[in-house]
């Protein structure tokens, strides 16, 4: 008979709300942990506290090695809608439980974590005393390096201006582990050698790697690799990485240096030898997992058809900051004598968003291993959006869909799809191609003309989120 699940609580960062439950599900899945979310109707905007049941503490530690949005996890000792009820629960804990942390040798410390209200220092000390007396603690207090750190978490709701006198809910717990939020600083694009104006921020890159289920020794591919931000995150979690991009200059790190935007002309420098994707990976000591990058047009497939990649993660161009291009022209060209024409950069033409996403799904259906995942950003027009907008393919199913607002009119959604059947299983007579039910992405500049309604090329509202 299986041991009963134990109750824990994750304290989340108060951001990227729509990504929270997807993060939980993707981490539990990739680490094969059987845990249960206790509050199925958890609303991330309302509270940073999420209770889950795990089989044991070891699985919690394992979970937190991949946690980007989850900051801290604690074992729940008591929880309830009033302080009094929580104190009663603490008093009633059996000795078999409390002996784990109440012995004379166990040093301890208490902290108050309040959401939605600032609690003054003296009031916090009162609170700590109020709860602490209900546990038979015998050890000494150690504020620097305690054996056990106890949390009192009080939830006053998401509006500090109208916070109630008493909390809506109280949790008391013992800290078990911390998440990997520091990685977002470690891999911050602010300190990365080689960036472009569409480089994905480190936190979202890591979230995408989790959504893709990246594990050590997996083969991870980005068909619109740009400056390689997604490859860095995948390599951090042990993936071996490769990418393609149509832009020769971006891949080679040619042109203005990564940080010359806004500098006067005299101070603009060109990119040096340390500004390319391999150099970025070397900066973080991940270069042993760099397989290769190629200059290649995604619309013109170069790969031998087989189930090659474990994960495909990508941020395709939306046509806002980056043109959506593929090789081709409407002009007639005389037969080119020597087709390698050294230095010749072929003309490009518009690559419609509908085709980009359909090509991406068709490619993924063919080139992903069975049960491999595709993770990509889909720009959407808020006023029009419905689930019909998500591109579909008979071999792929959507397993996550998280929204990040860009501005009033446009959002982007992080879509995770899993390949659940091979192309070979499909009857050749059936429809085996990707389709998009909506017409939003057809035509040139489908999203761009909504983002720049006056076709002015500049935003009337500034400080939107970085986007492609």
């Amino acid at each position: 008979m299986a041991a009963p699940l134990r109750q824990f609580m994750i304290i989340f960062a108060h951001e990227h709300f729509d990504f929270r439950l997807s993060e939980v599900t993707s981490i539990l899945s990739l680490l094969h942990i059987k845990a249960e979310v206790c509050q199925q109707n958890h609303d991330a905007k309302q509270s940073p506290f999420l209770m889950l049941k795990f089989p044991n503490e070891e699985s919690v530690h394992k979970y937190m090695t991949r946690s980007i949005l989850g900051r801290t996890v604690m074992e729940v000792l008591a929880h309830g809608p009033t302080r009094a009820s929580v104190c009663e629960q603490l008093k009633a804990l059996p000795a078999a439980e409390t002996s784990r942390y109440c012995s004379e040798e166990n040093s301890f410390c208490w902290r108050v974590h309040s959401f939605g209200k600032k609690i003054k220092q003296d009031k916090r000390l009162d609170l700590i005393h109020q709860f602490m007396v209900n546990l038979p603690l015998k050890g000494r207090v150690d504020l620097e390096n305690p054996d056990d750190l106890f949390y009192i978490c009080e939830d006053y709701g998401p509006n500090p201006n109208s916070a109630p006198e008493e909390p809506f809910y109280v949790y008391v717990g013992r800290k078990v582990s911390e998440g990997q939020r520091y990685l977002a600083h470690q891999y911050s694009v602010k300190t990365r050698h080689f960036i472009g104006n569409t480089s994905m921020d480190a936190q979202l890159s890591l979230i995408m790697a989790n959504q893709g289920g990246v594990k050590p020794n997996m083969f991870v591919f980005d068909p619109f690799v740009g400056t390689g931000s997604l490859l860095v995150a995948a390599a951090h979690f042990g993936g071996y990485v490769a990418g393609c991009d149509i832009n020769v200059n971006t891949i080679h790190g040619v042109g203005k240096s990564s940080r010359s935007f806004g500098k006067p002309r005299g101070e603009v420098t060109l990119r040096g030898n340390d500004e390319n994707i391999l150099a970025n990976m070397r900066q973080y000591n991940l270069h042993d997992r760099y397989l290769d990058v190629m200059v290649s047009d995604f619309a013109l497939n170069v790969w031998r058809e087989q189930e090659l990649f474990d994960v495909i993660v990508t941020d395709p161009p939306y046509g806002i900051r980056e043109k959506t291009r593929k090789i081709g022209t409407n002009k007639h060209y005389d037969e080119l004598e020597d087709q390698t024409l050294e230095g010749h950069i072929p003309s490009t033409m518009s690559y419609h968003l509908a085709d980009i996403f359909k090509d991406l799904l068709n490619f993924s259906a063919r080139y992903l291993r069975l049960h491999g995942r595709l993770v990509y950003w889909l720009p959407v027009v808020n006023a029009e959006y419905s689930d019909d907008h998500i591109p579909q393919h008979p071999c792929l199913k959507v397993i996550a869909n998280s929204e990040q607002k860009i501005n009033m009119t446009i959002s982007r959604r992080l879509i995770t799809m899993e390949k659940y059947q091979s192309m070979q299983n499909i009857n050749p007579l059936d429809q085996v191609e990707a389709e998009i039910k909506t017409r939003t992405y057809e035509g040139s500049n489908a999203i761009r003309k909504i983002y720049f309604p006056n076709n002015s090329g500049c935003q009337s509202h500034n400080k939107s989120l970085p986007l492609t």
Partner: protein
Amino acid sequence: MADPTVTVNEMKIREVDFNPEFISRMIPRIEWKALYEAALSLDVVGNLSPELITDYEKDEDFLKEAHRVLMEVEVIKGFLICPESGRKFPIENGIPNMLLNEGEVGDGPAQSEALQEDDSMQ
């Protein structure tokens, strides 16, 4: 010997940590014959086996040679050559350029709608 599939003007051997699990996972996804021919073209065959052996997962020497050729040999400047068409794809700074030229793509002019709207973007 067949025509070369890779030619090299500049090559580098870089040291990469040997990871037998990764190499074992990748071998079924590689066309071994093509790999061997490429190694011949580059003159880096060494002790690379001309055929895939059974139970390669357990053969560390085999895996180490596969690792050396796959991960440590890097063509910095050269060409990939299509064995069917002879088309050469240049490699610069270790990065192959697989772009086709305009004349090699499609059947000629695309929809005129695309041409007109093209110019609306800077």
